[in-house]
């Protein structure tokens, strides 16, 4: 159940990032995310073109961002879960997941007292580092990795100055 909620959060978060960074991948996002949650390693392994009977298409592969975004989102959500867990040790995992969700700008409501406190600058820096590291690990170009990391941070609720 917790996993389902978390996966849904990762999916929603990733779709938002994809809309910003690579909207042309949206038609295949549902299929990509389903495959990712079934087998993340296989999804992230690069697939080369085969000489298939009756197949046709150019040799130059397009860099698909969706699998990378899903992986980065997973790392980020995991980190956020750990952070929330530290603050609310007594709370159930279901509630923790709900609170993690509320850390994203998109899911926050107007009533601030019902929401968990936003992330600190340090925490946001950590999130950025995690996203950047994962994106680099998945061989995303430096520019796109930075763009992705910034988009991730941009999606999170911050302390208003």
């Amino acid at each position, binding site marked *: 159940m917790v996993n389902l909620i978390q996966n849904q959060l990762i999916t929603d978060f990733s779709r938002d990032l994809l809309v910003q960074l690579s909207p042309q*991948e949206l038609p295949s996002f549902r299929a*990509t995310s389903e495959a990712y949650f079934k087998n993340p390693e296989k999804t992230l392994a690069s697939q080369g073109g085969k000489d298939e*009977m*009756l197949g046709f*298409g*150019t040799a*130059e592969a397009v860099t*698909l961002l969706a699998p990378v975004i899903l992986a980065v989102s997973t790392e980020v959500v995991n980190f956020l879960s750990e952070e929330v867990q530290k603050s609310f040790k007594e709370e159930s995992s279901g509630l923790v997941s709900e609170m993690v969700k509320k850390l994203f700008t998109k899911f926050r409501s107007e009533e601030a007292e019902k929401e968990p406190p936003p992330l600190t600058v340090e925490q946001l820096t950590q999130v950025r580092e995690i996203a950047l590291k994962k994106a680099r690990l998945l061989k995303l170009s430096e520019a796109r990795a930075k763009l992705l990391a910034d988009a991730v941070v941009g999606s999170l609720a911050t302390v208003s100055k």
Partner: protein
Amino acid sequence: MSTETAPFARSPRLNPFLFPTDTDFRFILLILSIVGASLVIYQSLYNATFRSEFGRLVLQCGFQKACFEPYEQHQALWMSGGVAALLALAGAIYWVTPLIKIRRERLTPLLVEDAPDLAAYLADLCQEAGLSRPPEFLLDALNPAPTGLAFGHFGRYFVVLSGGLVTQFYTDRPVFRAVVLHELAHLRNADVDKTYFAVAVWYAFVGVAFLPFMVSLLVELVRFGLDELGFVFGIAWRGGVLTAIVYLFRNAVLRVREFYADIRASVWDGPTGGLERTLKALSPSTGYWQAHPRPDERHRVLTETYRLFQMGFGESFSAGVAVAIAYENSKAWLMLLLPSPQENLAFLGAALLFAPLVVGVAGLGVWRNTFVALTRGEELLGMGQLGLGLALGLILGQLLSFRAALGPPQEGSANLLNLLFSLTLSLAWGILLLTGLFFFLQWVAASASVWVGVATTHRVLRLSYVLGLTIAGGLLTLWLGGVFFVKDILQEFALILWTYPLGVISRITDSPLTLVALISLWAFPLSAWFWRGQIGATLEWAFLDSSSLTVVFPHQPPLRPGLAILLGLAGGVLFCVLMSVILVGLHLGLSDSIRGTSEAKDIFLKGEFALAILIQLGIATITAIWARRVGWAHGLCAAFIAGCVMTIGALALLQLGYCVSLFSFGPGHTCAERVDIELASFFFGYIVNWGTLLAVPVAVGASTMTSWVRRLRLP
């Protein structure tokens, strides 16, 4: 051929879909060669299983044929059952392959709600492609290469769009469109069923024929020791070669299918579409083991579609190999199936199965080559290469057939003379096969050139090649059946031919099939004369892209069947006049007692036939020289007409002789006697069949020499 330059992005491209593709026949050949190989495997498995029964029969009745008939028929049924199981498994594999592929590669359906704009665009493309039933679109979301793939089974087809390709819908629409159109073209060209069924047959062969066979061979090795090693080795290397042939053959055919899909897609895509750009960006990896042609080759064929019409040595050679592998095995199966008296029909039966396929590959190739040569105003060359390829393929294929491994072992060096004799005969047989196929393809080419010249619409062209190839199929069935029959009794045949050559030729000329074949030889090309009014019509229908160009076939000398008929009639009348004079002369010059002897009657009859044939040969030569186009066909027509008139004349003189003794050779006839149908057919068989058959080399020789001289005289 006249052409004018026109403002057109692409130069006009010949429409390769004017003719059915030879690849269809090559797919069937591929399947039949696998089925043929399995026949011999099941026969061998039967022998291994029922060895004791065979031994019992040998002890019981030696090698009497009749005694083995039930055993052989049971064996044939076993083989049929094996092939039925193989085809059933192949059908099952073909049917479930798409489902396995979808599951294994985690392909997911493209849902309208995921991308309504993309789904609507794909529906439009399917409509543009004229598909009666659109395929189901699937996503291979994790594949970053922008590729498409068509697969499926009858009634349910799929097109897979990779994740990379889907992004191109938004970033590079022309390339996306080109890739999808190419896949839809595969569906429109019905490539999916052929490809996947051929592959399924191969897997089924490996599963239920080749592997059980290898296991049985290993058991034999264990049971009988090293005595069987040579046999096992013979089967094993042939199995390896068969695998390689099937693989290379399949890929060669698939490469050709890619060209056709490119061309069909290019018509929908238009000259400014993204197809050419996509082709240039294809992976350059290539080789005979690849299922795709080189990108530069694809691009060249796309713009110069006439290249797709041209057939070469390799295609006819591979067709020959496939036919030979399957022919020998199918013939053996038919021989087991048929009762003893009809056993020889197996040669014709197997030829009937494979000759149409050979014609479908090589004959169609010749028609296509001829069409291109005429539309481009070029000389038709390379027919000899096709004939050579086919003949060499047929010879080599027999060595590669599993049946060759089951044959009797070679005799020892003590029979070196026998071996040399047998090698010489085999060489002579090979030359006979080669020569026959060479002339056969020349005939197809000559007939095609005449008919293509009068084709004013696609309908007329289709009618002419269907008719021409049907006749060619019939002729080749007779030829191949005869040639392979001769091969099996090579030593006996050589002996009979050596001691009694006329008897052999008589057996050929006596057959009514020979008459039909001889008439077809000249009647088909000359019947194009009825469409003579169409010469000079323009050929817009023969091109893919509408253009302002006016293309017509080059002017060629007209057909002159009237001349052939006239000269034939003249020859016939000459014969009748000469025979009348000879009859009267003999009647007056020789006594009744001399003319009454059977020897004199025999000499007279042979002389009459010899005169008839000589006049036919003379008429054939004159006509072949006179007619400027397909002189040999005119010559054969003239010889045939002359033969018919001569037969009627000879029979009329015979009847006249019964009433008027001056025209009678032998004494003692009465006016009440009548020429009966049996006698008439005897005369017809000798004069017309012998005359026309012997006129074939004469007319062809005269016609070839004349065209050669005419060519030399040209400035």
